[in-house]
């Protein structure tokens, strides 16, 4: 083209130059630096740690709520020790509506404020840029907002405990018309409204994160980092982000519909002439089952949002401490994708007994049976991964192994309830409670601990104490099985969930001693976490200093300093191979990092030896 054109573009570019220079402006000391570095930081690592600390704090809250629930189940109507004086209506005794609120908020806190944000928020944020060799997320401001949008949710959920009638108490599933009719229970007043507000903000936060993760993983991989050289953690985070992006809008919309039913007088979920507690609903013409469809259309994929990232992290940890390549990398990727795809067409299995057309139940039964398949493939591949390795029993590895061991239980118990005739009996019993605690606590939470012990050195530059880590693992492992395995046989009797006192039923009156045993185990399990908390904070300041790569792992984050500074890498990482090249024959070290340049001499020597 003409020269005039080129001068025009150069003139246009000129004003941009000083703008980019702003970033190197002299640091303004004091409060504003502190705020921008540690509070309103746009650095993905700081945001990841903010998520981690917040979720661990909520984990404590959720755990204490669980203990209060267990207290009532084991010793109904007996005085609650210590805390009883604070909340009890009569002496130290728990009211049934209070119990209903406790299990609702236990599930809400654990799902929306702990599991989802600890996986995607904490580990997704911290690990994605580091593991793909990027200096930060694609949209750092969006990323910061994804954390700060959690705060309105934190506040809404916390505040709801103190409003009249207490926090939401229609279960974490908030089924109408219990949830939509303000007269139906004490917690269906302000508590339920705040619950919906909190849920919406959690959704906004997840959506901001999800968009960011997808963009970052697609666009910002280091040179040489092809999609099929990504570690399983990143694949899992990527697919989780896709799941969230597609499923969340439905929940958000449903949440608003319920909010409108409650506040504006719409009747999406209320049938004509609905009378609750002698009060006639103002609007009608809706269908309570519609909520269940919309809610589970999100919340079933959400079940996979709550486990896939843990599966990914466990895959990486298993390979590292078995010193062996991942068995079946591509089948692992395809099975994660398969779980995600099938995850969208199985929601109806939560509704087999709901009054949904039983013929539709058959369809959902078949798709549900099929989703067990990719999970089975993953389990076999994990076993294949440790077969023939050199297993190092570190704390992180023990937690990862227990993930596999416990996931087998959670996966297999799922087949019982997928079988529709069996579900007739076990639906809404403790068998279901056992199942999802094996997946979410014994699975995901153990996976999260594995990840904390594994990436702690990268986060804080120091390693956690191994001895106390193992004590923590051992006690947690014993107590969790004492608490949750026994729930299977409790469910076999048909012991129903969510009952403040089931012992007045002839069928269940003899089950109190078993429940007391489970509560003792639950108390032990929560108490054990003191060991973890002390180890975590002590190691942060006094633990042995870790180098860049304390575990001799292969992935990119281990080539960065511990902890990495702003911008992550002190060089431009270039990727030459997949993430699982452990114990490569002919290589002196037992690991070959993704950034290690290919050595022509070694290759030649290996070829000569053959």
């Amino acid at each position: 083209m003409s020269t005039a054109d080129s001068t025009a573009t150069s003139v246009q570019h000129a004003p941009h130059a000083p703008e980019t220079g702003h970033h190197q402006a002299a640091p303004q000391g004091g409060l504003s630096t502190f705020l921008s570095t540690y509070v309103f930081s746009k650095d993905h690592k700081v945001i990841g740690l903010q998520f981690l600390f917040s979720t661990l704090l909520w984990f404590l809250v959720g755990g204490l709520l669980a203990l209060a629930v267990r207290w009532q189940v084991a010793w109904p109507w007996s005085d609650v020790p210590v805390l009883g004086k604070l909340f009890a209506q009569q002496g130290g005794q728990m009211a049934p509506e209070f119990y209903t609120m406790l299990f609702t908020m236990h599930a809400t806190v654990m799902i929306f404020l702990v599991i989802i944000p600890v996986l995607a928020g904490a580990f997704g944020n911290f690990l994605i840029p580091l593991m793909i060799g990027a200096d930060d997320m694609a949209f750092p401001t969006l990323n910061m907002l994804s954390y700060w949008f959690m705060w309105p949710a934190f506040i809404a959920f916390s505040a709801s405990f103190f409003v009249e009638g207490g926090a939401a108490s229609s279960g974490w599933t908030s089924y109408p018309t219990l949830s939509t009719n303000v007269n139906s229970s004490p917690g269906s007043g302000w508590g339920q409204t705040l619950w919906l507000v909190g849920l919406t903000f959690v959704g906004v936060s997840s959506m901001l994160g999800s968009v960011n993760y997808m963009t970052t993983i697609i666009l910002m991989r280091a040179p040489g980092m092809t999609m099929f050289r990504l570690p399983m953690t990143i694949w899992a985070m990527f697919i989780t982000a896709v799941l969230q992006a597609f499923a969340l809008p439905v929940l958000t919309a449903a949440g608003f519909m319920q909010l409108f039913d409650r506040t504006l007088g719409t009747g999406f979920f209320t049938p004509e002439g609905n009378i609750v507690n002698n009060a006639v609903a103002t609007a009608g013409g809706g269908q309570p089952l519609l909520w269940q469809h919309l809610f589970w259309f999100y919340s079933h994929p959400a079940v996979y949002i709550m486990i896939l990232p843990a599966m990914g992290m466990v895959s990486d940890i298993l390979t590292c401490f078995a010193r062996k390549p991942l068995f079946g990398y591509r089948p692992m990727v395809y099975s994660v994708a398969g779980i995600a795809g099938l995850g969208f067409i199985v929601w109806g299995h939560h509704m087999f007994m709901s009054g949904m057309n039983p013929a539709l139940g058959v369809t959902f039964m078949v798709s549900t049976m099929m989703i067990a398949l990719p999970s089975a493939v993953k389990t076999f591949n994990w076993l294949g991964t440790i077969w023939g390795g050199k297993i190092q029993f570190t704390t992180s590895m023990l937690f990862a192994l227990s993930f596999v061991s416990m996931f087998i239980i959670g996966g297999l118990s799922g087949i019982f309830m997928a079988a529709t005739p069996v579900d007739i009996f076990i639906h809404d019993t403790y068998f279901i409670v056992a199942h999802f605690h094996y997946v979410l606590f014994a699975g995901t939470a153990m996976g999260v601990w594995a990840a904390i012990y594994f990436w702690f050195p990268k986060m804080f530059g120091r390693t956690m104490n191994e001895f106390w880590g193992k004590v923590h693992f051992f006690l947690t492992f014993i107590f969790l099985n004492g608490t949750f395995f026994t729930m299977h046989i409790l469910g076999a009797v048909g012991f129903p969930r969510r009952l403040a006192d089931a012992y007045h039923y002839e069928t269940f009156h003899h089950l109190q001693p078993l429940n007391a045993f489970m509560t003792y185990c639950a108390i032990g399990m929560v108490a054990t976490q003191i060991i973890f908390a002390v180890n975590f904070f002590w190691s942060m300041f006094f633990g042995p200093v870790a180098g860049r790569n304390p575990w001799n792992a292969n992935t990119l984050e281990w080539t960065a300093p511990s902890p990495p500074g702003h911008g992550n890498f002190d060089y431009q990482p270039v990727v030459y191979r997949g993430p699982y090249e452990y114990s490569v024959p002919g290589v002196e070290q037992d690991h070959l990092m993704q950034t290690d340049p290919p050595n022509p001499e070694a290759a030649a020597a290996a070829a000569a030896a053959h």
Partner: protein
Amino acid sequence: MKRLSGLFWSILFLLVPVLGVATFAVAPAYDIWLPKDVSEHGAAVDGLFYFILGLTGVVFIATEVVLFWFLWKYDESKGNGPVKYVHGSHTLEVVWTIIPAAVLLFISIYQMNTWADVKMRRPDMAPTVEVIGRQFEWRLRYPGRDGMLGTPDDLHLVNDLHLPIDEDILVQLKSMDVLHSFFLPNVRIKQDAVPGMKIPVWFKAREEGVFDIVCAELCGWGHYKMKGRVTFESREAFDRWLERKYAEQEATQPESTAAVAVGQSADKELLASR
């Protein structure tokens, strides 16, 4: 020392299948197991439960023992030879995809008939009784002498369900206010009651006895106390009971106002049942 620690951890993982199986083996001895079944279709439901228990039990034991075996055998401190440098096996992937797929498909098809019997093949008859969930009680309505529901001569009761054995029962399930779930543990029946819907539930009891009616869907603060009782009895005993209850209702209500005084009558029944 390192070897000892490897042994310790592998054995801990071996305890999972050992104690897991032991729990299920010991539970029936303490009566922590499927409650007595008095229904006709229950045997098929329980049979399927045992079938899946057996199948998953085998997979559970096999995978957990393999996990233990690998941990014990491939412990680094045992100083085995070089690590098996493999990236997977196409054959194995195909095998362990196809076998579970076939098994899962088999379970899917195998169970369909039972599901259809319990939830889809509704007997062609008028409802035996209408059960209406209401915070926090089960309201019952039997057709009166005209054999039809919804007429002024209906019999209204609360929480005290009586049904004849050895014949098809069709329950018309409704809810007045919020979701409830009509759960008869001893009949292997569970069905949510949904406001705005009439849901048919059918079964056949084979044995006489008195059993629990449990509400299995959260319905508010008093969910735990939404308890009813079902009495299965011979046709003759059932008819006698029905006649007696009907006479009791007639005695307290002039016939023409029976329909108007529905709630009152139900409340009286509630008081009587306490």
